[in-house]
């Protein structure tokens, strides 16, 4: 079995696309409209800038430290205690993210597809697959995503393009002020910053000079598609956008009889299923990576067992409905997003400054 070898730049780009796209096409447009009306689009733009910043920082860091892992950099510059604290926080962050994604997807499928409240089906579907994806290694995960990527891209493009057919009117702009947009951005910051997975796999990405452009290209493609889809959603449902929770499904549902194709909203369901599996697989891989840094002597299967136990307990006992899930996503997770937008970038900047000083000192 090919385990945990490196992934190429295309596979990394595909990870970026999936992570950026998957997190923001289901609940987020509706939630942003609720808080910032149609100006929710600006929330996307603001937070995407931060996300692009994270990618740029990664590119610079990778160019300066090509074959070094982020963990060893943290350990070298800040010591083992800081390393353990950061990676402990990362474990919590990824666990919370996984729970959030699972819950959102569960509620979506329960409401629209399964019409049943049987959580066992969902756990039986998700847990073994994402465990396997995280277990077989980064290269296998990368190759699997690569194989399905054309399908994902075609469906995503189809959904976005066809969603414009459902546009009926134009919503009014300038209903929210700048502070509302900023507050809304902050509230939903946890749906962004997922590209920090790049830092965790830093030493496992084959990177050559000039590859950064490819990463930015994938990120920008995903961002453009999301913004287009959000525009189509707001322009389709205008003032009732906040009532339609599952954006990509709803915009497809709005034009479901197009061309006599029947219910093409089913295509969006297939897209969501693929994205959820891969997104959760990548996050779980991040979880196990962080776990192995925190407890290096333990085999990675212990990371998976720990995750499974925590996941089942939290999902089954604590969060079971949409309101609670949204509350959880807007209250706890934004604080944890501090890792994406503060701790990791701060560490990276410090590494770069130290490196630059070292080079100057040598000169």
């Amino acid at each position, binding site marked *: *079995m*090919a385990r945990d070898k490196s992934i*190429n730049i*295309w*596979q990394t780009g595909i990870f970026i696309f999936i992570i950026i796209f998957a997190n923001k096409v289901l609940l987020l447009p509706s939630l942003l409209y609720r808080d910032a009306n149609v100006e929710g689009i600006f929330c996307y733009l603001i937070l995407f800038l931060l996300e692009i910043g994270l990618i740029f920082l990664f590119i610079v860091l990778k160019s300066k430290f090509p074959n070094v892992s982020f963990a060893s950099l943290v350990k070298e510059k800040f010591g083992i205690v800081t390393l353990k604290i950061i990676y402990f926080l990362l474990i919590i962050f990824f666990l919370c993210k996984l729970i959030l994604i699972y819950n959102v997807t569960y509620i979506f*499928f329960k409401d*629209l*597809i*399964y*019409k*049943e409240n049987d959580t066992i*089906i*969902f756990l*039986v*579907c*998700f847990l*073994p*697959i994402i465990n*396997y*994806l995280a277990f*077989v290694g980064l*290269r*296998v*995960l990368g*190759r*699997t995503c*690569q*194989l*399905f990527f054309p399908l994902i891209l075609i469906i995503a493009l189809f959904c976005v393009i066809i969603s414009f057919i459902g546009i009926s009117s134009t919503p009014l702009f300038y209903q929210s002020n700048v502070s509302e947009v900023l507050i809304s951005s902050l509230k939903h910051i946890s749906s962004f910053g997922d590209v920090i997975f790049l830092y965790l796999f830093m030493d496992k990405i084959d990177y050559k000079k000039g590859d950064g452009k490819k990463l930015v290209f994938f990120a920008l493609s995903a961002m453009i598609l999301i913004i287009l889809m959000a525009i189509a959603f707001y322009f389709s449902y205008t003032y009732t956008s906040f009532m339609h929770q599952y954006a990509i499904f709803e915009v497809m549902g709005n034009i479901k009889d197009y061309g006599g194709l*029947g*219910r093409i*909203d*089913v295509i969006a*369901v*297939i897209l969501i*299923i*693929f994205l959820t*599996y*891969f997104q959760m697989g990548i996050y779980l891989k991040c979880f196990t990576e962080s776990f192995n840094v925190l407890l290096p002597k333990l085999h990675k299967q212990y990371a998976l067992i720990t995750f499974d136990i925590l996941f089942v307990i939290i999902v089954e006992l604590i969060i079971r409905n949409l309101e609670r899930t949204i509350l959880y996503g807007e209250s706890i997770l934004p604080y944890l997003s501090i890792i994406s937008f503060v701790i990791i970038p701060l560490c990276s900047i410090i590494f770069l400054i130290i490196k630059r000083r070292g080079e100057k000192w040598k000169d």
Partner: protein
Amino acid sequence: MSSMNFFNVEKEIKNIKKELHFSFDVADRTLKKGSVTIGFIYLKSFTDNLIFSTAIYQPISDLNEEISFSSVKNIVQANDVKEIKKEEIVDNILKGAVIILMNNSDKILSVDIQKFNARAPSEPPTTPVIQGPREGFTEDIKTNLGLLRKRFYSSDLVLKNFDVGKRTKTQIVIAYLDSVVDKKIVKEIEKKLKKIDIDGVVDSYYLVPYLSNNPNSLFKQVGNTEKPDIVCAKLLEGRVAILVDNTPIVLTIPFVLLEELQNTNDYYTNYLYSTLLRFIRAVGGFFAVLGPGLYIALQLFHYNILPLKYLITIADSTQQIPFTPFIEILFISLLFQILYEVSLRLPSYLGLATSIVGALILGDTGVKAGLISPPAVIVVAIAKIALYTIPEQAAQITVLQFVFLLIGASLGLLGLIGGLIYVISYLNTIENFGTPYLAPFSPFILKDNKDGLLRVPITSMKDRPYSFNNTDHKRKGE
């Protein structure tokens, strides 16, 4: 050389016969010419008796000059005449040679006159072609080697011989193009063949588990074909062929799943048409695996996402059915599988009768009796037919079909897509001889996709595959 080492011919023949357990087909002849006794020992069931008489016995018997080892060696009229060691006598006899012993020499002569019982090369039933060569391999390895040799008038083709199987000592030949193949692959194959500890090799399939990295896997990891033109094309790509005596199936290594989407006919017809056919094969394979599972998932879990018209049609036709949808589909699938097994084993004149009983009587009557619904019959029939768009993977697809049927019935669409992701991830873990199983799709290798799901014209195929190592990636140009 002292006369002490010369053979006592009669005694030696007796010893050899004893070693061969006095089998009834061991024949021996002695010829006395003056003081010289010449002994012949061979298998009468396995050697050509006419050649023995006319090309060996008669010329020696008619020899006027003084009988010596060299004179006998020169007079024998056969292609393969060689001097062998005493311990090689039995092996040579068993391979169809006549052994010649003389009481005035310590040397032993082996003359290969194996009887050629091979059938003529004909079109293999498993890979019929519309256009292109119709020759197929036979059970005789010499014929097969000849079929390969006549496609390469070049010294580049290397053939290496091995004997595998403690008791059968089956002849195995590996073939490759010296200037193209990656020698590491050849060495690895040689190493694996030498390590095989088995009492007999009855068919080339016996070698497959020994050559695969995941021998217990459901998925085929070694290529096989009955056609010399396919082997020729694969050798030109830098692959290694393994020919096994007594079987027309030749193995090729390294193997990638894509090879199953490719067909000989693709290369003997228009490239656009073959591209279309490959897409159809891929869709057929996909539907064969997922079709019944998807149907059952939609019927059991997601009827609400079906368009109303379809839903009404299905509801109308299934409301009188006494079984659950899962049992219904499972029953039809099993019925098809039973009919398939029966038709394979029945004589061909009964095949038509089985088809009539299966398709018309069981299918039609089952629907009319209200035991099975027409949509279920259609779905299973399409899936079972689609299975044979990739006939080489029929066994694997059949197993997956049942697995996905079970998943669809118990977990719905979410389970089906999860299962699909699992299967693809698993396939991505398989690597044989350094070749990713799903190459050139994942990892994506652009140049290899010229002959992937798409097929470009032969003039544009300038490179050998990059999916596996070979020493010369350029087919054309510099």
